[in-house]
């Protein structure tokens, strides 16, 4: 199997190619023991434990996938491992700040440029995640797929091809109906709207 985690361009293409390819990318990243050890090592050297390190490793992977997927044309300019390590360091610094344990001298300097956007704010907090998961759980699978691709900037022709709809028009209609269902759901559940922090 080709190691896509060593090649930034290939990794980006895999993440945006489709669900199966994305899953393969996640698998290769999660199973990369060397990369995981680097993240865990950084966190344990900076007031965290192994569990914190593993959490940051997984959160960094989630952040990277989410960023690449949601921004068509996004380019990772550094090596993927350096990118993930950089994201993990930022996430851990944020975590330490929240816990009030941040000392500017205790942390290693973050050398890797992450991006010029707000990638790190894309992460959901635990509580919000639970609410969102519960709502998404009720959404039909095909609605989730079509809306996910639409929000990722995919063209309707690409969505139709990926989800095997007979035409671009069918994909457009599906997206329209799913959005209406979601608006109706949110209108019926105003307390959920209040709890979901817009990203």
């Amino acid at each position, binding site marked *: 199997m080709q190691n896509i985690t060593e090649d930034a361009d290939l990794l980006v293409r895999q993440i945006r190619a489709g*669900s199966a390819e*994305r*899953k393969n990318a*996640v*698998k290769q990243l*999660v*199973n990369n023991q060397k990369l995981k050890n680097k993240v865990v090592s950084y966190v344990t050297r900076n007031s965290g434990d192994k*569990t914190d390190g*593993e*959490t940051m490793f*997984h*959160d960094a*992977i*989630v952040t990277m*996938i*989410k960023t690449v*997927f*949601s921004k068509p044309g996004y380019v990772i300019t550094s090596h993927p491992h350096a990118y993930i390590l950089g994201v993990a360091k930022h996430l851990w610094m944020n975590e330490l700040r929240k816990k009030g344990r941040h000392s500017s001298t205790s942390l290693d300097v973050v050398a890797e440029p992450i991006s010029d956007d707000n990638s790190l704010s*894309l*992460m*959901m907090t*635990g509580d919000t*995640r*639970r609410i*969102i*998961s*519960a*709502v*998404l*759980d009720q959404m039909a699978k095909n609605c*989730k797929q079509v*809306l*996910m691709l*639409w*929000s*990722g900037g995919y063209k309707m022709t690409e969505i139709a091809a990926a989800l095997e709809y007979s035409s671009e028009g069918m994909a*457009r209609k599906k997206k*329209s109906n799913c*959005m*209406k269902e*979601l*608006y109706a759901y*949110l*209108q019926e559940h105003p307390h*959920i*709207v209040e709890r*979901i*922090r*817009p*990203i």
Partner: protein
Amino acid sequence: MKDFYDHIDDYINERMSPEERAAFDLELAINSQLDQAVKNHPAAMSLIESIIEEETRASISEVIAESSATTATTRSPAKTTKLRSIMRWVAAACTIGAVAMWGLNGYQHGQMEGDILANYVQDISLGGTKGGQATSTMDSVIHYYNTNQRAAAITRIDQLTKTNLLEEDLITYQRIRMYSLFYSEDYNAAAEQAKKLKGMTPQDTELLYFSLVLAKRTAEARRVLSMMDSVAVARVGHFVE
């Protein structure tokens, strides 16, 4: 514009011609449903943009579960015994959690303060009685629970929850009921009780997960697992196969 709902994102992100925008504004003025949809659009987008995160976390869970299952197979032939021992560990942890949560609720309501709280929690941890007598309604439930009279605890809670209770107290009773059912090995009922809990803690979620695993409700267990954080998934994810 054929369908205004299809253009809400364009409207909010200013991707409309002046004519289209004017038409949209006109419709907004007379269509309260559309107006509400526009207001809810940011929340809708938050949900939609979270789908990819959910998908990725589910993939990570699967990968971890796969590798944990491989490790478990090679390390532990007596899987059932291991599962049971973890069940007991979780139940023990939850007992402490329930008492702590009760103490915190009481404190927040101004029913106890400072040292009194500490003494009270310590007293409860020793059996929930003062001089052999239960000191309050909550005491009696805790006492039943801590002395392994779980059926009695459940019966008492069922009586109490028919009365008007503060929401925080109700949650605590529901939580103790859930632990009682779980520890009585009524996993289906424990799972159902867990689902009714408001403001589930990660510990509650883990208990729900284990209840579903033991009740052999695998699909539901997987869904709950996908909501857990990666550390919990790494620890317990392999039990659902």
